[in-house]
C-alpha cells in the first residue's frame, strides 16, 4: 500500500471530519447539522462493529493464559465469561422483546447489576485504606490536607454543628474558595491542553496518529 493511502489519506479524512464537526459547532447551518448527525450515527455503527474485534482479543488472551496455567481453576476462569456471554446473547435473541424481555432483564438484574454493585462497594474500602496512608501527618502538605479534610467533614456532623458552630462557615469556605478556585484553575488548564491536542490533530500533526504499527 502506498504511503499516501496508508498514512496521508486517513489523516486527511480525520482532519476533514474534525473541521466539519468544529464548523457545525460554530455555524447553525442545517446542512452542517445534518452532516454532524450522520457522522454521529456512523460512530455508533463503527463502535458496535468493532466489539467483535475486542472479542477476538479477549479470546486470544484467555487461551494463552490457560495454556500457561493448565489448572481446573484457570479453566473455570477461562470458560465463565463465555458461558455468561452465551446466556445473555441467547436470552436476547430467542425471547420476544430482545434485551427488554423479562428473561434477559432477569439475567441483567440478578447477575450483572449485583456483581457491579458488589465491586462498587469495594471501592469504599480501597478509598479508606488509601485515605489512611494519605492523611498520615508526615509533612506540611499532609497536615494541611488533613486539617482541611477534617474541617470539611466535621461540618456535616450535627454534634459539631451544635457545639462548634464556627466549623460550618469555615468548612463552606474551604469548599467554595480554595477548593473551587484551585479546581477551576486546573480544569481550565486541562481544557486548554485538550484544545491544543485537538488543533494539532486537525492540523494532521498529532504524533500518536503517525505511528506505523
Amino acid at each position, binding site marked *: 500500500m502506498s504511503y499516501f493511502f496508508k498514512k496521508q489519506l486517513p489523516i486527511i479524512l480525520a482532519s476533514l471530519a474534525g473541521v466539519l464537526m*468544529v464548523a457545525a*459547532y*460554530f*455555524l*447553525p447551518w442545517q446542512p452542517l447539522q445534518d452532516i454532524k448527525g450522520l457522522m454521529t450515527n456512523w*460512530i455508533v455503527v*463503527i*463502535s458496535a462493529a*468493532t*466489539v*467483535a*474485534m*475486542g*472479542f477476538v*482479543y*479477549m479470546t*486470544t*488472551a484467555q*487461551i*494463552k*493464559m490457560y495454556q500457561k496455567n493448565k489448572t481446573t481453576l484457570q479453566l473455570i*476462569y477461562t470458560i465463565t*465469561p463465555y458461558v455468561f456471554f452465551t446466556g445473555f446473547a441467547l436470552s436476547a435473541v430467542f425471547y420476544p422483546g430482545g434485551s427488554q424481555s423479562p428473561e434477559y432483564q432477569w439475567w441483567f438484574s440478578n447477575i450483572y447489576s449485583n*456483581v*457491579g454493585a458488589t*465491586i*462498587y462497594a*469495594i*471501592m469504599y474500602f*480501597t*478509598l479508606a*485504606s*488509601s485515605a489512611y*496512608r*494519605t492523611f498520615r501527618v508526615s509533612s506540611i502538605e499532609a497536615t494541611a490536607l488533613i486539617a482541611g479534610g477534617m474541617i470539611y467533614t466535621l461540618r456535616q456532623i450535627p454534634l459539631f454543628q451544635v457545639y462548634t458552630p464556627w466549623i460550618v462557615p469555615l468548612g463552606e469556605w474551604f469548599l467554595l474558595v480554595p477548593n473551587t478556585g484551585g*479546581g477551576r484553575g*486546573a*480544569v*481550565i*488548564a*486541562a481544557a*486548554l*491542553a*485538550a*484544545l*491544543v*491536542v*485537538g*488543533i*494539532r*490533530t486537525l*492540523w494532521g*500533526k*498529532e*504524533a*500518536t*496518529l503517525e*505511528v*506505523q*504499527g
Partner: protein
Amino acid sequence: MLLGILADGTLQPLILLAVLVAATYNYNRKAFAGEIKADQLREIPAIAAITEGVGKSVEEGKPVHYAMGASGGQLYTQLVSMTLVSLAFLNYISKLCAKFEAKLIVHMPYQAESIPLIEAMVRDGYKSEGKEGDFQQSCLRYYGQGALSWTQAVTASYDQEGVGLNLSIGIFYSDCPISLEMAKIKGGMNVGGTGRWIMVYCFAMMCDYVFLGQEIYVAGAIVSGNPLMLAGVWIEDAGKFYSLLLLGLGLLAALLGVGAVTALFGL
C-alpha cells in the same frame, strides 16, 4: 455581520480558538526551526519514576501493567485528547519494556474501536527498539463493556500475574480507586494521572508518583520527544495568558460596574 452567522454564545470560544490556532502556527514554526527542546521544560519526577518502575518490575520478575481506564479509548468525545496522550505514554512504556525486556500487559478500554491504535502503539514501541519479535498479542487484554467488569479483570490480573509497575494514564471514572489501590496492595508501584479533575484525588492518594491534571499533556509531549508535541506546551501557555487577560478584563469591568465585556462575550 459575523455575529449573525455564528451560533448563539460561540463568539468567545471562536476567539479562543483563533488565538490558539495563531499560537499553533507560530510555535510549530519554531519547533520546525529546532528552537523548542524538552530541556526548556521543568522536570516532572513521575516521568523518571516510570523507568524506575520498569527496572523494579524486571528485578522482581513481575509484569508492567498499563491501563488507560475502562473508558479510556474515547475517540469521538471531548475527552479524545486524553486518549491520544495515553497512547503516547503507551508507546513510551512499550519502548521501555522492549528495551529492558520487561513483560508488558495492556488493559484495553471497552471502546474496541481504539484497539488498532493501541496495538499500533505497542508494536511501534517494540519495533523502535528492534525487538518486534518480542511483541505478543496476548498482552493486549480486552474485557468487554462496563467499568466494573474491567475493574474486576484488571485486579484479577494483578493478583494472578503480579504487578511491578502499574502505569495508569487516561480517562478514569470510578474504575481507578479499586485498580490503583489493588496494585498498591499487591506490591506494585503506582504512577499515573488523569486530565479529569474530579478523579485526580484518587491518583493523588493512591499513586507513588502522580501527574496532576494537565501535567499528563506536558509529560506526554516530553516522553514522545516530538518537537510539535512539545510546542503544544507553549501554545497552551498562550491560551492561559488569554484566559488571564479575560479574567483581568472581567474583574476590572465588574469593579467599574461595566457590563460591556461580559455582554460582548455572552458570558
